[in-house]
């Protein structure tokens, strides 16, 4: 039986080595490019070409997506402060969603199954929240480590706890996306392996793969949504400071 983790392997398609750096174009890079091309052809180019007052099919999708993202930002960051973060949040959501959905095409590569990718997103967001916090509040930003309304005796105890919960945020953000996508795709691979292994009752696991495929499609949307909404929550926390 084939290894169920086989489809997470990265293969170099066009090897490029420049001065000890491995800049090869692998199947992961190509999946990422396809994601970008999908967003570009569906969202960026139609929007640049000019929008009509009466929306067509593609423009309605675009407007619904933007409305959804704007509501999310308004709810967790705030209407006034949130305005300048909408482009970032929208590109984050659309890129993760596109990558998750590309992973659902058989034979393609799911880029969000690599903890390197989700980790870089999460660490970037963490550093960004720190920069926003320090530039907005100055040294008062360190007050985020002291929750309001606690007795002074507990402050030395609360600071390490708050530091741990701050550092746990990017870790849980990246691990959640990575683990959900990897687990779903592994289950699919195992079920397909079972379906291939015996012709007599192979239809049973094959039926399950159909159901799990539907579940995975929902998970792709939900995980992209959770990742972006938690980004909004973290940015909002840093802006409002309790």
């Amino acid at each position, binding site marked *: 039986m084939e290894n169920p983790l086989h489809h997470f392997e990265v293969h170099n398609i066009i090897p490029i080595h420049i001065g000890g750096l491995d800049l090869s174009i692998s199947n992961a890079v190509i999946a990422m490019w396809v994601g970008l091309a999908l967003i570009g052809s569906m969202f960026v180019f139609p929007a640049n070409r000019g929008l009509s007052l009466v929306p067509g099919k593609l423009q309605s999708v675009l407007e619904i997506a933007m409305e959804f993202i704007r509501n999310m930002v308004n709810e967790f960051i705030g209407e006034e402060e949130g305005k300048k973060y909408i482009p970032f949040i929208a590109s984050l959501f659309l890129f993760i969603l596109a990558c998750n959905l590309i992973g659902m095409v058989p034979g393609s590569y799911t880029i969000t199954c690599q903890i390197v990718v989700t980790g870089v997103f999460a660490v970037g967001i963490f550093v960004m929240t720190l920069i926003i916090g320090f530039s907005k509040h100055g040294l008062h930003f360190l007050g985020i480590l002291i929750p309001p309304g606690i007795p002074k005796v507990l402050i030395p105890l609360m600071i390490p706890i708050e530091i741990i919960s701050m550092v746990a945020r990017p870790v849980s953000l990246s691990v959640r996306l990575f683990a959900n996508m990897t687990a779903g795709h592994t289950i699919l691979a195992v079920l397909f392996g079972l379906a291939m292994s015996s012709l007599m009752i192979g239809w049973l696991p094959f039926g399950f793969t159909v159901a799990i495929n539907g579940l995975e499609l929902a998970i792709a949307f939900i995980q992209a*949504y959770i990742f972006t909404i938690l980004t909004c929550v973290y940015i909002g926390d840093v802006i409002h400071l309790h």
Partner: protein
Amino acid sequence: MSKNSGFRQGVQLAFRLGTELTVATIVGGLMGYALDSFFGTKPWGLVVGVVFGVVAGCLGVYRVATKMNIEDEDTNKNLE
């Protein structure tokens, strides 16, 4: 629309709470371990780190849960 956003809120919380607790514990333990190898205080950093990590995880879950309660009461008031 409001019903739909309630569903989304629930799904988001369901996926969030599970990882919050585990990851905080692991991060606390790792930080304690790192302090151990830095200062050479072999087991104590790990012990204290895990305890702080568990506390941080519980606190995070508690905060999310209390926020959820307040939102529930708000929607109840609107319904009445």
